[in-house]
């Protein structure tokens, strides 16, 4: 029986942690939806579980995604997480090898060098000893990086780091203290017993020259145990709750759970998995271009976790999805924000009984929904009409005469019930038209039609529809050879995953130039309807920064596929901003006449070249 009084703080902390965790886990799991349990049941004994464990290893221990952000930042996270994990595992096996039995006292491997003070003689034990020292060295190097990062964030590729609360700082200090104290405890013991290895033994020998190690080593063992216990107790109340919760999150996510329109136990697990690493702060354009470093997801989730969330903070977000893309934990951050807005919404907020219910709608093949914002840049809907006419398809311009909103702006503001009224009204009309295809020009509407309308027909954004028409040879576009850059709208790109179709379309008739920040990394135009409380000045700062960025390569046109982006960037852009529908319509040729026109165009170009 190995025992000493100093193990009590550690054991007490550990037991408190386990009780609290069991209590919280059962609370969250009991809040899962019934459908979620069915998903878990059907996926439990499949390959998905193995993938989940692989992901846990890659993300929770190695921190692959953090490595992608910055190698040094990745090393810092890995050395702490993987290093500590290895200390536990190797320590366990060391104790197993030494005693010959697998089940020892829980704390025995952790304080192994205190309980076994006779110097080892067998090579295996010496190797164990050396590897434990090596791992400790790796962890300590990680802590050095972590401390330096507090003073020089730029070193790890971060411009801004999270401003932590007092509780988090205490937890952070206890975590940082654990490993230096372990080093001191082991070194001071090694100094008078000789059970250390290449790291602890020289330090111990050195300290032994001028310190009475036999009497002070006990102090360090106590402090080491206290630091461990303090950290264990702080876990459920601090950011370090992410350590146990992220494991559960990865498992559940691999089993097919995700956050939908309701805040469930799974959403709570997502919230608690936030490690407050602060990677979302740098990616947020409201910080990098708008100088607002208080509204980012890390602070939003923290305020929610401690019940301090205010509508002003919750409303102040573009919902562009850049943070969701960057989050190393993979939390669906935008949806979390929308769900919190839903919780804070007001009762009886909207009434749309005045909307007309059109029963006698002509049957058509294609329904075209321009969207509110397209009405403010009517060239887009005019171009689309021109294209429909060239294709000679029977179409219905659903919101030609006064538009009913698709409902997404209300949904993004949290008023789900109000949005449903609009959804129902539009849905009736779309179904009544008997169309097989719904084409929209607005990515905001597109996402809404796709996700909320439950339509049984094809829903296409025009950047999907137009390439289809061209490849089916229904319309023909004259090549222009103009230099164009493409700006990805948030709702179409990150929101709906449509990156390639508009690019392929543009490549057919323009000289599409690549950008350094494009596709999932593209900037938000700043006009987003997701943000309710941002003032116009700040909005303009983001719009201008994005416009400047897109103009940096001096393109002849900036192409986009969203009326909102067109208007936002257009205000500040040097190059004209065009929707891809406008570009297609402007270069449309009648089938059969293309050779004639092309010849004329080539002649013109040759003439210009000669000049």
């Amino acid at each position, binding site marked *: 029986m190995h025992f000493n009084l100093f193990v009590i703080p550690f054991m007490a902390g550990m037991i408190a942690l386990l009780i609290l965790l069991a209590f919280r886990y059962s609370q969250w799991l009991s809040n899962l939806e019934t459908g979620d349990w069915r998903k878990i049941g059907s996926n439990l004994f499949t390959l998905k579980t193995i993938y989940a464990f692989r992901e846990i290893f890659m993300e929770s221990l190695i921190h692959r995604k953090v490595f992608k952000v910055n190698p040094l930042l990745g090393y810092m996270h890995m050395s702490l997480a993987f290093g500590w994990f290895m200390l536990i595992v190797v320590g366990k096996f060391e104790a197993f090898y030494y005693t010959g039995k697998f089940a020892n006292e829980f704390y025995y491997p952790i304080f192994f060098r205190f309980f076994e003070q006779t110097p080892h003689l067998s090579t295996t034990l010496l190797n164990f000893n050396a590897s434990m020292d090596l791992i400790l060295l790796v962890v300590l190097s990680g802590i050095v990086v972590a401390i330096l990062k507090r003073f020089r964030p730029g070193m790890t590729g971060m411009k801004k780091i999270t401003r932590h609360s007092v509780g988090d700082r205490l937890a952070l200090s206890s975590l940082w203290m654990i490993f230096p104290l372990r080093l001191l405890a082991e070194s001071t013991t090694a100094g008078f017993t000789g059970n250390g290895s290449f790291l602890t033994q020289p330090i111990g020998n050195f300290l032994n020259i001028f310190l009475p190690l036999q009497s002070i080593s006990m102090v360090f063992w106590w402090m080491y145990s206290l630091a461990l216990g303090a950290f264990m107790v702080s876990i459920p109340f601090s950011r370090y709750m992410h350590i146990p919760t992220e494991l559960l999150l990865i498992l559940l996510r691999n089993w097919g759970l995700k956050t939908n329109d309701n805040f469930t136990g799974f959403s709570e697990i997502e919230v608690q998995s936030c490690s407050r690493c602060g990677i979302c702060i740098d990616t947020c354009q409201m910080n990098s271009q708008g100088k607002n470093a208080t509204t980012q997801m890390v602070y939003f989730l923290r305020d929610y976790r401690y019940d301090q969330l205010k509508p002003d903070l919750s409303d102040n977000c573009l919902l562009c999805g850049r943070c969701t893309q960057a989050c190393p934990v993979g939390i669906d951050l935008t949806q979390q924000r929308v769900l919190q807005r839903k919780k804070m919404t007001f009762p009886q907020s909207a*009434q749309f009984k005045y909307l007309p219910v059109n029963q006698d709608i002509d049957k058509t093949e294609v329904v075209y929904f321009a969207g*509110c*914002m397209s009405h403010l840049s009517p060239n887009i809907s005019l171009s689309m009409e021109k294209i429909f006419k060239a294709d000679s398809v029977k179409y219905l311009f659903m919101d030609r005469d006064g538009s*009913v909103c698709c409902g997404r702006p209300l949904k993004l503001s949290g008023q789900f019930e109000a949005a449903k009224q609009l959804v129902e009204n539009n849905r009736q009309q779309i179904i009544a038209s008997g169309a097989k295809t719904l084409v929209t020009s607005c990515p905001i509407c597109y996402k809404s039609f796709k996700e909320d309308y439950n339509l049984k027909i094809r829903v296409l954004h025009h950047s999907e529809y137009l390439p289809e028409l061209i490849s089916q040879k229904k319309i023909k576009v004259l090549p222009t050879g103009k230099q164009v850059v493409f700006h990805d709208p948030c709702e179409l790109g990150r929101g709906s995953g449509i990156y390639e179709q508009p690019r392929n379309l543009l490549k057919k008739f323009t000289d599409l130039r690549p950008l350094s920040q494009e596709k999932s990394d593209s900037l938000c135009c700043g006009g987003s309807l997701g943000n309710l409380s941002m*003032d116009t000045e700040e909005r303009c700062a983001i719009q201008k920064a994005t416009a400047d960025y897109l103009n940096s390569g001096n393109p002849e046109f900036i192409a986009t596929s969203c009326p909102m982006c067109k208007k936002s960037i257009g205000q500040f852009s040097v190059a004209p901003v065009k929707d891809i529908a406008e570009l297609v319509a402007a270069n449309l040729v009648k089938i059969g006449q293309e050779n004639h026109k092309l010849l004329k165009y080539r002649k013109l170009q040759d003439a210009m070249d000669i000049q």
Partner: protein
Amino acid sequence: MKEWGYSILKGRQIDFENNDFSISRFVELHEPSFSWCIGCGSCTATCSAAKFTDFNPRKVNLLIQRGEIKGIEDEIAKCMLCGKCQLVCPRGINTRNVVQNIKRAISKSYAL
């Protein structure tokens, strides 16, 4: 007497002493741009809801600033929050946040 289609207007004066400025104060506190309105009516001209009903964002703004808030909850409930008014506003008023805060103020007075 025969109805001629004419009538005498009732006395029309703004009673600043008895009007209710609670909503006005609340909105101004949370969205200061609320008071920048010059009443140009661009918002009403572009409003999606105004196409179908007699909803009038300019009027709503004016009446709230005057403290004449009778029936305001039915009026503001017509807004679809589409954001067109915000794009056309020459004063750069954050109109959507104004609407949100009016609704918030109304729901607060319900709670009282």
